[in-house]
């Protein structure tokens, strides 16, 4: 029997392309999104090779994208990961 964690059942994983030249840049993205965490953002995964950021959140993707845009890095919303 698979136990599904009901508390996060409406949270989704969004994929973003984010131009990150170094660890400082990925650190900056993590720090900005980290401020949202708690109930709204449950995980932030960054893939430096593919320049991708995966965010598990209950917030709409536009809110997350707006936060990333504010860091001054080139970024775009790819879509929802199933």
């Amino acid at each position, binding site marked *: 029997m698979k136990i599904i964690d009901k508390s996060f059942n409406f949270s989704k994983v969004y994929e973003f392309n984010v131009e990150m*030249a*170094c660890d*400082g*840049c990925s650190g*900056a*993205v993590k*720090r*900005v999104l980290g401020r949202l965490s708690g109930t709204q953002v449950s995980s932030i995964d960054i893939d430096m090779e593919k320049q991708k950021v995966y965010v598990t959140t209950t917030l709409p993707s536009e809110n997350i994208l707006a936060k990333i845009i504010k*860091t*001054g890095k080139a970024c775009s919303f790819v879509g929802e990961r199933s």
Partner: protein
Amino acid sequence: ASLAVVSVIGMTCNSCVKSIEGTLSDMNAIKFIGVSLEKKQATVRYDSKEMTERDIVENIEDMGFDATILQTETN
């Protein structure tokens, strides 16, 4: 214009410096901004009627760095 010296923690490369300088210099209230990676500081000359040093800190923190005011001079 007033001058603020802000400590900026979290920068590790030149692209971090350029992104801060680029974003803040686009703001018309900011007359000059110089970011030093080695000293982990930003020196900002700004129009204190349009912007407070609190706004400068918030803008830098929105970019994902930790900023605190070290010194301000208003003239």
